[in-house]
Structure formats: structure tokens, C-alpha cells
């Protein structure tokens, strides 16, 4: 599994529905519509791989595949970088 970190040019702002992520380089705004996803995005750099972050954020294991896809999309849109 890939290891990610929040992109250094991305700002994260908590909102009632989750968070907004803004990339100061490509000026794209992304909505994170899930609180657990926000926690994972904020802490993923502390873990050797994605699954470690998912476990620590107490994401139910059944949902891990969906979160992995969501995180891969966030990497594509440069909200996350691959370490």
C-alpha cells in the first residue's frame, strides 16, 4: 500500500460536513465530506501505510477499500503526496 502525506501546499479547513482542502499551487478546492476521512488525511503521514492510518482512525475494516480509493483520488488531485 502507498504511504501518503498531506501535500505541503494544501490548507485544510474543518467544516461541519468534514473539511475543505485548498491547494495553493493549482488553486483547486476539494470537499472532504466525511469526518473519518479528514482524520485519516491529517494523520496519514504518521503511518507506514494507509491501513495503519485507517485502523488508527477507527474506520471499520469493511469500509477500507472505499477509503483506499478515496485516498488515491486525493493523491491524484494533489491533496495528498506519495511519500
Amino acid at each position: 500500500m502507498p504511504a501518503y502525506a498531506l501535500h505541503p501546499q494544501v490548507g485544510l479547513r474543518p467544516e461541519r460536513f468534514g473539511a475543505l482542502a485548498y491547494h495553493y499551487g493549482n488553486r483547486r478546492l476539494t470537499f472532504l465530506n466525511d469526518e473519518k476521512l479528514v482524520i485519516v488525511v491529517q494523520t496519514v503521514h504518521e503511518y507506514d501505510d494507509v491501513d495503519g492510518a485507517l485502523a488508527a482512525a477507527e474506520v471499520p475494516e469493511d469500509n477500507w477499500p472505499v477509503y483506499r480509493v478515496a485516498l488515491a483520488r486525493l493523491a491524484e488531485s494533489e491533496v495528498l503526496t506519495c511519500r
Partner: protein
Amino acid sequence: MPMTSRQSTERMSRGLDAPICLTWELTYGCNLACVHCLSSSGRRDPRELTTSELFGVVDELEAMQVFYVNIGGGEPTLRPDFWDLLDYCVDHHVGVKFSTNGSRITTRAAERIAATDYIDVQISIDGADASTNDAVRGRGSFDVALSAMRNLADAGFAGFKVSVVVTRHNVDQLDEFAALAASYDAQLRLTRLRPSGRGADVWDDLHVTAEQQRVLYRWLLDHPDTLTGDSFFHLSALGEPLPGLNLCGAGRIVCLIDPIGDVYACPFVLHDQFKAGSIRAAGGFTKVWRESALFTELREPGSAGACASCGSYDACQGGCMAAKFFTGIPLDGPDPECVHGHGEAALLAAAAGRPASVPGHTRNGPVPISIGRRPA
């Protein structure tokens, strides 16, 4: 279920802790006198915010984690403290996109802008050639804008915006605008003509026709990378929704701070009825955004009103509040440019009572331009 999406969610319409898209007009002063100016700019206002008040607003935006501001005017670069404000924003992690007519974008200014990721620029033109543009923006303004674009491109600043208000006379130049922007490695941005400010005086003559709206809609679907500020969401009633947020963001995700610190629901409604408060009052901008009676009301679910029985209401949400208001149509009535033609009857019934946009700062004397047809 996690979702990541740049599209709207229903939750968005209930408001955010801070705006996503904040327009900040720094001055009513302008060296042009565009016939459709939303803020009726011209003369500076003696009550405009001082430099330290500007910095105070930036401090608030930083604390609220507003990612960036859209700075405009008037012509914002006419303020002597403009570049200091840009530096202050960048130092406080508030990104800036500013709109300009290009008159102050010298080689040196372009190099300065190109040197930081946090600053983006939008150069306004309203025609793909000098005669079409200058009829709206004033003689010589096209060449000035092009020279600014050249300076930015020469400074290596790719991706700046070329911003166009779509009118009856330039809507057949969309391909030319796209080619022009591409030639400077810039991005095209198209926005809707609003009947706000001096735009109210020219809207009847300049707004696109029903047939032109259909052409524009198809063009936007074919060119999804074109920026629009999501301003054409009323066209989504023609079928497939346009990319972006298809709802009115006024007071929910969008607002305007005007040059004297008054906060309005959006950049197109400079009128007392849509004034939420002032950044000069206790609690500042934060309190206005989070607690003002007007914004609280705008965040309540709206009524479909006269549009309730229309099958397209979900697609267009009744259209633009400002366009209705300044053409005298009730806010729960149809958009004056409703693609199903419901606006025309509403306009006929409402034409007597169009409210005046305030405040006006048009310079004394005649505006030295006239609206002409584009030469064939």
C-alpha cells in the same frame, strides 16, 4: 461513506464557517468607466478602509482560514497600498486573485506577481478585438489589457486568467477568446452579465438572447475547462448540468466586502436590502459572516415560489437573485433569463419597479463611450 467531490452538496447551502469565495473590492476608484460596471465605480470614496483596516481584515481572514480572496474594485491597483496589501496577504497565508484592467501591470509588476504561488491575476476584456472591447470598456482599453497579458507571459507567469463578461456582442467570439487566452498560456474565464450597478442601464441591450444562451450552454459543455465562477447555473435547466456549483452561493459560500467595509451577500447585490453589516462594527467580518440576520435567512431552505411547478427547478434553483432583484422580479420569481422563457412575462410585469443600485461612484460628466454594434 467517504466522498471527495468538487460538486455542491446539500450541506453547503446551509452555510460554511467561513466563505470559500470572498470578493473584496478595495476601492471605488477606477481609471476606466465600463458601461456594465457592477459597482458603478469611478471616484474613490473618502470612507474607504485605511491600510491598517485592510490589514485587520486580512488578520481575520487568516484566523477564519479563508484560503484566498478575490480582490477587485474599481481598479484595485490604483490604491497606493495595493502591493503592500498583497505582501501582507501572502505573509498571512491568504491567497490572492485580483482582477485588473491591466493598466498597472508593468514588466516589474508582472515579475513580482510571477514570483509567488499565492498570487493570481485576472485581466478583464469584453471583446476579442479592440472595437468590440472598447465599446464597453473604453477607448484604448483592449491594447492596455493585451500589453498586461504580454508582460505576465514574458515574466513566465502561466495560467493567469483572461476574464470576459459575456454579452450579446461578444458571445460569437468565444473561440477567439479561448485562442487568445491560450496564446498567452492563460485560462479563459467567462461570466454572466448582471443588471447590477451601471449594468442595469445597459442590461436590456447587452444581455445575451435566448438563442445565444443555448449556443453558450453548448459551448460551455464542450469546453469544461473554461472557468465561469459558476455564474451560468441558470443554463443547467437546458439539460445536462454545467460543471461546478449549480446554486446561488450568496451569503452561503460567497460574499462581498466593499471598499468602505460594508458586507453584501454577493458581488452583484450592492443594495441596502442585501447588506449584512460592516467589518467596522464590533465583531468585525467574522461576526457578520457567522451571525448576521441576512446571512442566517439566506441559509434557510428557499421557497421555489413561482418556479415550484417547473420541472427544471432542481437544475437551476430559480436562477440568480441579483438578476431578479435589479430587473424588478420578485426573488421567488423566475430568473429574467430563464431558459424556458418564464422571465419574459415576469419582466413585462415588473419593468416599472427596478430598484437603483447603491452606492454609485460614477465620475461626473458623460461616460466617454457608447455601446455600438460590433462592426460586421
